[in-house]
Each structure stands twice: as C-alpha cells, then as structure tokens.
C-alpha cells in the first residue's frame, strides 16, 4: 500500500527515498537501477517547466553532477543526481508533454534512471519514510512552499 504524507498540499510518498538538499526523489527498482525525479515541493517552486535537456543514456555521472537542465518561466537550474552512476534511461515522455513533472512528479514525471556505482556509500544520506516526511515538513515551513500541480 502506498503511504502518502501531505503537508501544505505537498505530497511526500513514504516508500520513496529522498535527498532533501537536492530536492530529488529516488526509487529503488528490482533490477538494481534507481529512478530519479523532482519532488512535489521542487516542481512547485520551480513552476511551469518550459524546457528541459536530459543528459544522454550511457553518460556517467558523479554525485552532485547535473543529470538535466530544467528551465521554467522564471528560472534555470540543474537537476543534480544524489547517486553516482550511469544513465540507463531518460524519460522520453517529456518530448510530447513538458509538464509531466508538474502534473505527476512521482509517476509519469520521472526524469532519469541510473545504474548506481557507489550505492552503499552514497545512499546513507538518503532519507525515507517518516524521517523523510519530517525533514520535508521543516523544509516546506522554512521555504514557505505551498504545492500546486498543473492540471492533467
């Protein structure tokens, strides 16, 4: 069952892992890869995405390096990966709908899938479950975020 905490309209699914600083969620896949995406607070703060460049499949990234460049109407910035690894897939769905991450950040709006190369070490900074929810409550309060989704 999916357990979802909601705070200031921001959804924080408890089964996912988070790098709260980078504002990135991580889902552990059965085949040992990880899927990464923008969190609900991150998409809300960024605003309506008007363009996105995803790094290519096969590209090796170190923790903190940018896996994508995201442009909203008001801001441009990197999407940093919290885990080092090699990109095995990128979300081609953005080609037909740039608003995927604004509409469904934890589902159809995922950005990239990686095969991690230093998971044991780097995953220690990730939070999940109630610890993640608690960290996000603080961050949401501090940043005065109120989440809004673009209409599907």
């Amino acid at each position, binding site marked *: 069952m999916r357990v979802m905490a909601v705070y200031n309209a921001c959804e924080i699914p408890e089964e996912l892992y988070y790098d709260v600083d980078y504002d990135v969620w991580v889902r552990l896949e059965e085949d040992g890869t990880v899927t990464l995406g923008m969190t609900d607070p991150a998409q809300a*703060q960024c*605003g309506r995405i*008007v*363009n996105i*460049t995803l790094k290519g499949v096969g590209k090796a990234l170190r923790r903190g390096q940018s896996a994508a460049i995201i442009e909203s109407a*008001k*801001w441009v*910035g990197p999407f940093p990966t919290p885990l080092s690894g090699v990109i095995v897939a990128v979300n081609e769905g953005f*080609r037909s709908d740039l608003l995927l991450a604004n509409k469904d950040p934890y589902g159809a709006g995922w950005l990239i899938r990686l095969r991690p190369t230093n998971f044991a070490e780097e995953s220690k900074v990730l939070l999940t479950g109630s610890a993640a929810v608690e960290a996000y409550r603080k961050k949401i309060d501090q940043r005065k975020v109120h989440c809004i989704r673009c209409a599907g």
Partner: protein
Amino acid sequence: MEPIRVVDVGEVSPVASQAVYHAVAYAMEDATPDTILLVTSLKPYVSIGYHQDAEKEVDLEYCAQAGLPVVRREVGGGAVYLDRNQVFCQWIFHRDRLPARLEDRFSVYIQPLVETYNQLGIPAYHRPINDIQVSGRKIGGTGAASIGRSEVVVGSLMFDFNHELMARVLRVPSEKMRDKVFQSIQEYITTIKRELGTLPDREEVKGLYLQRCARALGRELEPGELTEREWEVVRELEERFSSEEWLYQKGGLRQSQVVKIHADVHVAEVTHKAPGGLIRLTARLREGRIDDLSISGDFTILPAWAVGALEQALRGLPLKPEALHQRMSDIYRALSVQAPGMSIEDLTQALMLLEQIR
C-alpha cells in the same frame, strides 16, 4: 553579515558582459562575498536563452552581416538585442542569502529597480512574478538561475532600447510576423528615454540604484574588484561562450515559434491545412485574447474584403471555440461569405492552434 561587494565592471565586450557574472558564480567559494555587478556591453549583440536553438530563433546570417555577436547565456528566456543603452544589474549570491522562494527572490531583486525608476519620475511597478512595468509596458526583463554554488538574478536598467533591431535579429516565419513583433515591441516595451523624453546621467542612476539595493537587502554595500581567480574564469568562459559548439548547441525538447513580448503578450504564427487551401494566422495574444490578427493563405474567399472583416471581428475575443465560431458565423451570414473548403470550423481549428503554443 559581511557587506555585499559591488563591482562596477564598466563597459566590456559583448561576450565579457555575459561571462562575468557566470564566472563569479562558478568561482564562488565559502569566502566569496555576495556580489552585485554593474556591466554594460560596449558593442551591440544578441543574447539567447539557455535552451534556445540559435539557428531557429535568430537570423544568424543577418547578425553576421551586421557584425553582431550571438552569445548564449545560462539563464532562461528568449533572444534579446542588447547594446550600450542598458546597464545590466547582476546579483550573484550564496544560496542561503537570498529568499528560497522564487517569488520572494524576484521581489527583493526588483524592488531597487522599481524604486530607482520611481525616483527618476517613472511610475514603474513590479508585476509579479518577474516583470517590471510602466502603464502595462515592460521596462527590462529579469531572470534567475542556479549556477555553480550560487543563485543568480539578472536584469537591467533600461536607458534605451532598439525596438527595430530587436525585431530584425529574430528568425521569424514571415515578414508579416516580423511586422507584428516589431509593432508589439514598440507598443509593449518602454525605456527610461521614452518615459522621460531624455536620458538622465548614467552614473547618477547607478548610484541611486545601489542605495536602493542596500535598503532592499538590509545590508551594507562595499565597492570592490574581482579577484584574479575570477578574472581567470571570466577568460575561460569567454572562450567557451565564443565557441561554435556552445552557440550551436541544440536546445531542449521544446521548440516553438512564439515570441514572448512580455508576461501577457505573445506573437505567434500558425498554419492549418484546410480542404480549400492553407490558412496562415499571425496573431498577437494578450491575456489569452486575440489582440491583433492577420489571416492569409491560398484559399479563396468572396467577397475578398471578408478577410479584413473577420480579422476585425475576432479582435478582443478569448480563444474559446464557441465564442470564435459564433462571431465568425455572424460575419459569414451578414456578408454572405462564400469560401469553398474554408469553413468556420476550419478557421476555428486554426485559431485554436494559437492556444496550444502559447
């Protein structure tokens, strides 16, 4: 908190006017002070947004002939013609020293610009999220980016602006569209010179602006210089920004033929294949309504002046199929329009394409 370093970089080359704030951002270390740069480009050039496809958005052939460099920036938005008549105000701050929320960050950034214009007698105001306007006209653009370890916000003091060259450097699908872009820029973009009828002393305006920055940020400002290391990064970036690889780098996933004039005003051209021929619409949209429209194409319509009547009748309407259909039905009936293969449905479909690309 330590004072903010202010560096009046003065007049530099086009590429340096962009490289300098990127360099301060990339070179930022723990000990680097938050920095405000004032920069002017000695020569005119075209700056394009991070994700723009240079060949699709800019008339590169014209720019080459006219000797205008084209420089990609790591901040978003559209292509813009820049010259000596703007003073760029570039803020490069440590991540935690500007408001985390973009709305708040722009408020802090825009306040001193608005107050400076007000002080000069121009009734400018902040039009959230990031526009500055005077009676509905935009006076300069602003943008934000996360670069390296810093948060960057950029904008300008708009002393004057070359509306004509702005429209000239863009690649647009037709001269009709260029005319519409030009008219729209004339109508919706203003400057200090236009508002005051004269140009105030530049140094005085910069001084006013810096005083207002200190007040908006509640911090002290201290004149300073860039470090040697920062200049080194400026030179590295100048090289990168001048490379063909950087200029021709393909943009992101979205490409469109919409020119955004300001927050609420867009000019776009769409084509729709109807049974009776191609319909081409060049339109200006304001707050989701048709503000101005040209209909052309290779269809046949009688009486010939019905096209003008339709263009007139559709102005002011929202892009809602029912409203458009109703108004066009009235015209078709009143003028006994005959347009084989170009039904009201075809025109409605063409008009609704404008909504999709906005």
